[in-house]
């Protein structure tokens, strides 16, 4: 009755059996180089992990839109922040969303955090041809819950465009505005009071918004935050209880407070 899948619960195997494999790519000798830019970051705060991103999408010097959500809820306990070519990055997010839920429903248990981290690494490796051509580069951030400890602990990971995965200690940033962000995060972690890891929720949200405002000062491809036009960031939290979103109203209140 079923399509035979080589690996139980593996959604990519199921797609391959139907000849529907995602992210197909073939090298092109004269591929155009597209530019893309963004600022996404994640840091540990007192209650878990905060992941945020600006909402601007650019193509060269053109602002395409200021309403992109670059921090994506993959499942109830996983977040992905995308930096790089949107077409590839959003497709990776969609593959991960379906894969994780497919595994959970078919195998009646959730994927472990290491398996989720490797699933994203696998997609990045399979995108190597597009990465090497410069038209499909993705450098994402990932946050997930480590359920091997009690209570479950949120962890942050970052990747290089070829699929190498690294666990972040405290904070991480990606995208064209990440240089500025990392400097500020490093300063705050070493000399700040409170340090990011000690911040309460309101402080952490305000800090995240100010980080994006700072990044947008130095990086034209980062959208920043503008309360006057009700342009806020995409902010999501990962606590031991799972993923939560921080809406515009809450961001506005934190910025004022």
């Amino acid at each position: 009755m079923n399509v035979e899948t080589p690996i139980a619960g593996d959604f990519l195997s199921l797609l391959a059996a139907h000849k529907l494999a995602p992210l197909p790519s073939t090298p092109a000798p004269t591929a155009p180089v597209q530019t893309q830019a963004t600022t996404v970051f994640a840091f540990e705060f007192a209650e878990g992990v905060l992941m945020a991103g600006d909402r601007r999408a650019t193509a060269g010097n053109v602002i395409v839109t200021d309403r992109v959500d670059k921090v994506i809820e993959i499942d109830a306990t996983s977040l992905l922040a995308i930096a790089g070519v949107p077409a590839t990055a959003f497709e990776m997010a969609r593959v991960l969303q379906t894969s994780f839920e497919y595994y959970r429903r078919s195998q009646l248990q959730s994927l472990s955090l290491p398996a989720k981290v490797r699933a994203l690494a696998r997609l990045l490796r399979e995108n190597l041809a597009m990465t090497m051509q410069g038209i499909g580069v993705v450098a994402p951030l990932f946050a997930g819950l480590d359920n091997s400890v009690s209570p479950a602990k949120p962890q942050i990971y970052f990747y290089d465009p070829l699929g190498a995965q690294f666990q972040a200690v405290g904070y991480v940033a990606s995208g064209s505005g990440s240089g500025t962000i990392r400097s500020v995060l490093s300063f705050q972690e070493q000399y700040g009071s409170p340090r990011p890891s000690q911040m309460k929720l309101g402080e952490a949200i305000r800090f995240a918004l100010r980080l994006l405002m700072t990044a947008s000062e130095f990086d034209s491809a980062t959208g920043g935050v503008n309360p006057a036009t009700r342009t806020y960031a995409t902010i999501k939290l990962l606590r031991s209880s799972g993923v939560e979103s921080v809406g515009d109203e809450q961001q506005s209140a934190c910025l004022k407070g």
Partner: protein
Amino acid sequence: MTEEPYRWLEAVANRREYVREQLRGGSPAFAASLPDGILLLAVGSGQSKVFELFDRHALAGLGHPADIEKIRQAAIDAAHTESFTRAPEDVSLRRLVSFGLSPQLKTNFEQIFTAPFLVELLLAEIGPEPEKDLLLRLHFDGGFRFQMGGVMVAASQPEPEAAAQAWLNGALAGKNSRREVADMLLQTWWCLVENKPFGEGLPSESDRQEGWRKGTHDRTVELGWLARHAPRTARYEALSLAQAGL
């Protein structure tokens, strides 16, 4: 050669009798549409009879565990492939059953040299409002019946199932709380497994309640909840009896 069609008809009839006999004694399953969601209920051994299929879809059933598992897996495969190639909103119970599960079950049932599926199933799809909730009864031979909202029973034998369905239609009228409905479904479950009549001679409510409490003592009441409104796209949640207020 002229007698071949009659042999086939006889073989199919025997097969139907065989499946019914094999299913006899199977523990019934239920689905009920409520203002806040759809409640699925069965009594089994834990993660054995009530399952999440997709964002808005769930399944409950009785029968051979291996056969339930095969159909569950086929439904999950089809739903996720459809969701990925089109969109999650395009996954519909009507299409999943009409063009997927039902034809496969019918084909399998009529291939008299293969083992038939020993299953009786209920599937549910949560809608934006109770009137748009879809409940579906799928039989081992591929036959199926849709119903918008209300309550639906899957039992091993048609006559007790129809009696329980008729009784529940009246007994659940005006009952909107998850606790009340779960209690009524468990009372019905006990009456079905104990072969109690639903007309004259129906045990009192206190006897029915005491009956299901005793009857489920060494078993697991499996409760699935498809929430009408939830922050996440996946609406299914497995509930404990305590979470259902029992």
